[in-house]
Structures are given as C-alpha cells and as structure tokens.
C-alpha cells in the first residue's frame, strides 16, 4: 500500500459514542443474561491445609443454588497450562481451586451461586472451613534459602526455574576494567489495577453441549484454548466473548481460576452464572507483577566506555506459575540502547506464598531499565562525568543498527542520540547544570535525571515463540466482509480495552479499501466468528494486525478490481479505489461506485468467468521480526534535604514508536504508560506482612494509585522513524511510557541531593525512602 489516507490521522474514536453515553457494555452490565451470581470464598492464610469445608448451613439460605468445592474442581479439571514458561520451569500444578492445600492468601477454596451477590456473600459467611495454617514464606530470597517452608512437594528449594547465560567474556572484561560499580536493587510488587475488575459470565448450552463464556479479557482465544484444555472439552465447543473491557494492562490475560469455576457452576446449575470481582478480591486474586531483587554490576574503561554487565537477580513469582508467569524481557532488554558486547545473567525465579505473578505493562523492561540507568548514573558520579555525556559515549549510533544485543534482540532502527539530545534540550539540561551551584547556595536542591531505553515490541515470529516454549503464536488475523452496500465488516479476536484498536483497525482497513473509517464496522473479541487471534498484549496488536488487515484488504481490492474491470471493460491493473469509487488511474471518467461492484459480487448475475460470488477475505500475518521503539525520559525535581520530600517539577519524554496510525491515540497510550510508570515509581507497592504472610494493603484505600493532583503534565516529543520491517512501519506503543519513569526520577533526586551523596536503590521512591537514603549517606 503506498497511499494510506487514514494512517497518520487523528480520527475520532469509534468507541467514544457509546462509552461517553454510559452505553458501553462491560461484563457486569450483562443483566439480561445473568441468572445466578457467584461469590468465592478465599483462603485467608498464606499457606494452609484445608481440613474440611462444611457448606450445609449455606445451602439452607433461600436463594442459594449451588456450592462448588475444591475436591470437585480437582476431580473434574486439568491444571492450568502455562503459555509462556521460562524454559526448564517446574510444573506447579495450578488448579482453579485449592485442595487440599492453599498456597496464597486469596486462593479460591469454595464458590457459591445464589440469586444475587448479597445472598451469595451471606452464604459464604455460613460456610465453615477448617484451616490448618502451615509455615509460610513471603520473601523470595528467604524462600530459596535452606530450611524455607516448601510450597510444592515436587519443587525443591522453591526454585521454579534458574538459568544462567553468558555472552562474550565478561570475566575478562571485569578483570581488565578500570572501574566497576555495583548495586543491589529492590523492585516493588505492584499490580495493574484497572478501574474495572475482572468478571466472568458462563452459560452452558445443554442443547448443543457447548459452553459460552463472557470474560473481561484481552485474549478471548487464549482463554478459550486454556479453558477447553482444563475442562477436557473440545476447543470448538467453547465460545469466549469479551465485552467492553475497562482496562487491561496485561493483567486480564489468559485463563484464570474463576473462568473454570464459573464454567463448572454453569454446567452444574444449568443456568447462566456471573461473577464480578470486587476490589478486595482483586488484590488477592488478580496477578501481581514486577517484584525482583537485582545485583547488578557494570564494568567500564577509564573514559566511561562500558565494557560488560553482570546481573544476578531473583524474581518473586508467587505461589504458582500462572499462564504467563514472570516477565521475559528483563534480561533481554537490560543492555538497553548501549554498545555492550560482554555480559552474563543469572536468573532465579522463586516461589513464595503470595498471589501469582503475571504480565504487566512493560513486561520486565521497567525493572531492567531502572537498575541499569540508576547504576549508570552512579558510574558517572564515580568517574566524575556528566551522566548525559556518559550516555552519549555509549549509545549506539544509527549507522550501527541493526544491532544484536547480548541477549539476541535485534534493534532494527532508531536514533538514540537524537532522542537524548531532544530530551536534554526540552528539559533545559544545560541551564539546570549552570544554575545548580547558585541554587544550592540558596538552600534549593534542584536536579535533573535521565533514562534512555529501547523498547521491545511485538514478537519476532511464531517460530521464535515455538523455540522458546510458548503456547501461542505471534500472528494476528482478521476477516473482512464487504456487504452489498459497499461497507465493510471487520472481524478481529482482539477485544476493546481502551487501546483504540476498534478505531485504528478501521483506519488501516479503510485505507486499504478506499473507504472511510465510518464505513467499517469492527466486530471484536468473540472467538465465534473471528479467525484465530492471539490477543491484545506485548504491544503487538498493530504490528501483527496491520499486517493481517493489509493482506486481507489487498485480496478484496484485487477482486474488486477484477469485478470492476469486467463491468467497466477496463484492465484491472489500471484501476484504483478511493472515496467509495473505483476509477481508471489514467481516465477518471471511467468509473463505477464501489457499492455497485459489491452488489454485483453478491447478486452474482454478471461475474467474470471463473469468479466466485462473495467479497471477503481472511488473512493471517506473522511478523518475522520484533520492532524496537526507543526513547529518553528527562525529569526535573526539587528535593528537600530535611524531609526527603521532592517535587517532580517537569517530566519530558521523547519517544519514537515508528509510524503512528492515530497520533491522538498514540499520545493517550503514552500518557497512560507514563502515569503507570510514575505510579509504580513513586506511590504503589503491595506489602506483605512477614509475620502473618498476609497482604497488608489490598484495597484502594491503602494501595496508592495516583490521583490527578499527584501527577504532573507530561511533555511529550514524538519522533517518527518508521520500522523498516513491519507493515506500515509501525512499532508497538502501548508499553513505552512505563519503562523510563522510575530511573529518570531516581536519577533526578540523586542529582538534586548529590552534595549529600544520596544513593537510591528501591522502589517506590517516597519522601521517607529518600530521607532514609540521606540518613545512610550521613552515616557513611
């Protein structure tokens, strides 16, 4: 496609009309279908044997229809499959309900279906469960240490998987290096916390022996595949539909225990059953993310040239390996946009009595960016170099790309130095440096911090995923059907969870068919009637989806031209279509309305010989490579050395996500990513009490999501280097905003308080944590 009239246009979103009116259809809005409502009883202990469950009193409450117990679930289902295992991972045997042992506070132990949620919760109150608390461990390093309580019989030392990898000769590089720096960093446990929690509505169709599930999910097809496997059903007997989804961010992916529980209750009661996650359950049952401890070392020459990196880290994956488990991109993107050729990684994934870990926006990149960029600034301070100058020395230049980093990721295109320069200019870097001494003399501690990143978007082919043990492919698919009136219906398995796919897919499709986005109806998120889709995550949807749409529209356009050629008596290869009209490129008077062509296709009265009726296409696209976006964050803070409090005065992000299909939507995605990045950097943390093993702050009262008053204006600068290897030149954009936030702010605070020798190494950064860092520095 060389002319793409709707790509690069900030078209109004199709989603907005219904969402603004309050007419969006979210899971809990499906009142007409739901008959029974489910509440789930969850283990209050981090580790416990379930000695008995007595639900007799509950069943006597009027309106209570059914109770489902753990032993029934174990007998009737298979454990959940892991779709993205670290190679070599042990099996944790994650069933939808705990029996006979529960391994995290929040694990489902019993479920009740009743006339409404109020009655279902009354029923839970009357169910007597005899728990025998067992020793627990809620710290990853302690879990790996000898003598720790063992979570799974078959998994020694609570080590889900451990691996090491080495490229080049890091030992030699470290030995020869003029300088080394090291740091021990703690990444906080956080969760995506979309404002809409999860929900499931299950319906068993006895007449066809099929199951229909409505799920607030980003991945209907993956849920279907996993659900069928767990329930020992044929995949084609299961339908999964996503309604409008109120935010996903990676945590509404793949099958969850509740999907299986609701399916069994639907089968048992013969009635549609609905479960809506409340916020207290959400924190105890929806996947957590990111928690890790890194011991990172950098080796450098005297002039600051990076020689090698060593990262030894432990991820706290919680009690089970969830379908996606721990993030994959930590190692992969640790080298960042720098010239590094020697490195080694030692990664251990530890099981603890906490909620299982799953993917969350960034998928390992926010973590590795934080540890590397903060340590780089320490290196700069040790060498007496300016942090920007140190980075410039090591950033890859455009002529060095494509560049394969030490983890095998192939950076395709980008100008990292230009990104840095623009960020420094926008934040007024030189000006801040020039005035810092003067400000300090006035008792004002102003600092600026930088974070550079390369962003891995999409998956580099299904074959790659197969080689690395994934249970899904890298492709997307689409079916496009023209109707007689010349409009198009596009069917995608990707659901609508705020990312604007309904609009951007229509833009790409309209460009390919010579129509307008308003002429395209986008049907989404229903496994029935859409070709096999993977789903919305990993910033892959536009890369893979645009490719599928391009192929499908090309097939349709080719047939339109064949039909039009026949009707017009003109050569098919001299035709073009735009504005709903097919015309000769060299003689516009020779034309026919697209609607006439489509009608001809369906009436089939005057088809060219050998041509079938109809006008539709199904296409799959499997991206052969990943695309790498990049950016630089520059943050300015003013810090108070008495209290540790700091004011984030300015936040600049220069980013490049390749071609932007809808610039307005791209900017919104960046804003949202930055907000989550800053939320995890400055406010959020899921805290477990080491003595009780329970989650201390599992509610919106005590889990600090930032409000509008807590975040600054974000200053964005968009660069656009189209990817040389993706359809349209797009790169993924959904996750970039999260990656550089924590490091930029940490570096800014350390810069502001550098007269005191402050070093920061844990998230979130709070006034208290900065104060403690000041105290530590004073004592040194």
């Amino acid at each position, binding site marked *: 496609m060389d002319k793409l009239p709707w790509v690069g246009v900030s078209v109004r979103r199709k989603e907005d009309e219904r969402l*603004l*009116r309050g*007419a*969006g*259809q979210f899971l809990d809005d499906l009142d007409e279908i739901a008959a029974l409502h489910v509440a789930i009883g969850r283990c209050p202990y981090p580790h416990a044997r379930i000695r008995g469950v007595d639900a007799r009193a509950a069943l006597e409450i009027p309106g209570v229809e059914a109770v489902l117990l753990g032993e029934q679930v174990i007998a009737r289902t298979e454990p959940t499959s892991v779709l993205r295992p670290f190679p070599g991972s042990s099996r944790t045997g994650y069933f939808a309900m705990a029996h006979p042992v529960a391994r995290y506070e929040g694990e489902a132990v019993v479920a009740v279906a009743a006339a409404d949620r109020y009655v279902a919760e009354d029923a839970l109150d009357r169910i007597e469960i005899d728990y025998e608390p067992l020793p627990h461990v809620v710290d990853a390093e302690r879990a790996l240490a000898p003598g720790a309580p063992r979570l799974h019989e078959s998994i020694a030392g609570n080590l889900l998987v451990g691996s090491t990898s080495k490229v080049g000769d890091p030992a030699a590089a470290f030995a020869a290096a003029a300088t080394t720096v090291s740091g021990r960093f703690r990444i906080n446990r956080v969760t995506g916390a979309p404002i809409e*929690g999860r929900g499931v509505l299950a319906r068993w169709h006895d007449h066809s022996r099929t199951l229909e599930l409505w799920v607030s999910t980003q991945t209907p097809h993956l849920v279907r595949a996993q659900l069928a496997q767990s329930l020992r059903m044929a995949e084609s007997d299961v339908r999964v539909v996503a309604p409008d989804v109120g935010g996903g961010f990676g945590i509404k992916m793949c099958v969850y225990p509740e999907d299986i529980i609701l399916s069994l209750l639907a089968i048992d009661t013969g009635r549609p059953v609905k479960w809506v996650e409340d916020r207290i359950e959400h924190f105890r049952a929806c996947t957590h993310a990111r928690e890790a401890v890194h011991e990172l070392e950098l080796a450098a020459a005297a002039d600051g040239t990076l020689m090698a990196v060593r990262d030894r880290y432990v991820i706290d994956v919680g009690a089970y390996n969830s379908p996606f488990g721990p993030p994959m991109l930590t190692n992969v993107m640790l080298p960042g946009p720098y010239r590094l050729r020697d490195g080694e990684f030692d990664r251990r994934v530890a099981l603890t009595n906490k909620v299982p870990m799953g993917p969350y926006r960034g998928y390992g990149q926010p973590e590795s960016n934080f540890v590397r960029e903060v340590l780089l600034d320490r290196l700069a301070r040790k060498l007496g170099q300016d942090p920007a100058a140190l980075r410039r020395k090591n950033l890859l230049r455009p002529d060095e790309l494509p560049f394969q980093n030490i983890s095998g990721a192939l950076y395709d295109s980008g100008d990292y130095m230009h990104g840095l320069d623009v960020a420094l200019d926008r934040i007024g870097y030189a000006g801040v440096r020039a005035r810092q001494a003067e400000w300090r003399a006035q008792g004002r501690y102003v600092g600026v911090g930088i974070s550079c990143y390369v962003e891995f978007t999409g998956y580099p082919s299904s074959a790659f995923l197969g080689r690395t043990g994934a249970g899904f492919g890298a492709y997307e698919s689409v079916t496009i059907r023209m109707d007689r009136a010349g409009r198009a219906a596009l069917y995608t398995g990707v659901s609508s969870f705020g990312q604007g796919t309904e609009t951007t897919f229509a833009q790409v499709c309209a460009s390919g068919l010579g129509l307008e986005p308003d002429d395209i109806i986008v049907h989404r998120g229903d496994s029935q009637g859409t070709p096999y889709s993977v789903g919305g995550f990993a910033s892959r949807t536009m890369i893979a989806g645009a490719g599928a749409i391009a192929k499908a529209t090309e097939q349709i356009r080719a047939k339109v031209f064949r039909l039009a050629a026949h009707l017009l008596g003109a050569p098919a290869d001299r035709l073009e279509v735009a504005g709903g009209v097919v015309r000769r490129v060299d003689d516009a008077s020779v034309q026919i309305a697209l609607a006439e062509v489509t009608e001809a296709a369906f009436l089939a009265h005057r088809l060219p010989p050998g041509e079938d009726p109809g006008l539709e296409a199904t296409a799959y696209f499997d991206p052969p490579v990943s695309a790498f976006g990049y950016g630089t964050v520059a943050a300015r803070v003013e810090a108070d050395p008495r209290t540790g409090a700091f004011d984030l005065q300015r936040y600049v992000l220069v980013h490049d996500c390749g071609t932007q299909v809808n610039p307005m939507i791209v900017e919104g995605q960046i804003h949202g*990513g930055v907000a989550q990045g800053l939320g995890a950097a400055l406010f959020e943390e899921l805290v477990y009490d080491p003595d009780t093993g329970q989650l201390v702050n599992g509610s919106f009262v005590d889990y600090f999501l930032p*409000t*509008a008053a807590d975040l600054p204006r974000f200053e964005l600068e968009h660069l656009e280097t189209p990817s040389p290897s993706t359809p349209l030149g797009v790169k993924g954009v959904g996750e970039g905003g999260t990656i550089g936030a924590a490091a930029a702010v940490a570096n800014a605070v350390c810069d502001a308080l550098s007269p005191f020798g402050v070093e920061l190494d844990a998230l979130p950064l709070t006034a208290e944590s900065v104060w403690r860092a000041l105290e530590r520095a004073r004592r040194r």
Partner: protein
Amino acid sequence: MTARHRIRVTVNGRSYERDVEGRRLLVDFLRHDLGLHGTHVGCEQGVCGACTVLLDGEVAKSCIMLAAQVDGHTLTTVEGLAGRGELHPVQEAFRDAHGLQCGYCTPGFLLGAVALAARGAILEGDALRAELTGNLCRCTGYQNIVEAVERYLKQTVGGATRG
C-alpha cells in the same frame, strides 16, 4: 431477606417508585433495578469515583450510599446528559480531547465537570486537578481529562458570562 422500604426518587428527570432492601447499595439499585448501567463499580469503598452520580446537583459516590437514602431526592446519572439525542457539550469535550480510553471511569468525570460548571467554576491546572482527586483513572494519566474539562468549563461558564 430483610424488610423492604418504599422509595420515590427522580432519576434523569423520570420518577421511580420501588421497594428496596435496606442494605441495597445505591449503585446496585441504579444499575440493576433501574437498568442504568452507565454508573460503574470500581471499589465499593468510596475511593475510585467510578460510581459518581449527581445527588441534588452535587457529586456523590453511589457505592457508599444506600438506595433507601435517596428517597425523595433527585439524581442525575451519565445517561441523563445526552439522553437519546446529541452528545452533551461535556461529552463532546472529552471526545475531542481524547479524555477517555476504556471509558470505565468516564461517567464519573463527566458528572464532576457538569457539577463544576453548574457552580460557575472556571478552573484549570492544579486547581482543577485538586477538584478531581475523587475520581481515579488508570488509562489516561489524567492529562487529556484535565484538558477536556478545562475546555468545557471555559466554553460553558466562560461563554455564558461573556454575554
């Protein structure tokens, strides 16, 4: 089941008379008894504001009110803004500024903006952000929401006083 209470309430200009259990939450009454699904549930603790409605013209969180409490009162939900007709100016402002992504928190913000306009407040920047702390958004980072509300207030309140 405990005793039911007869309540009379006007919602979006229409009168309703219903019997409710004492413990029935206002948000559940609106959503499931009256079929007005535009008001959403995010936390049931009164933090996230997805359940925000206008109670006698002022914003209130319906997840921490009992349905029985609104007997004799007047409510506006998001469905009362445009009805079946054209979008309300506040909805247009959000659409044009891309002030929504998944749309789940949006009704609460829309009603908050309408309440500010009714009070004649032209707020912007930090002063406006301080008024919005009772509504959480996880998708937008707030920037475009702030822009949408600023535009709407300038146009509605500012425009009106420019007569």
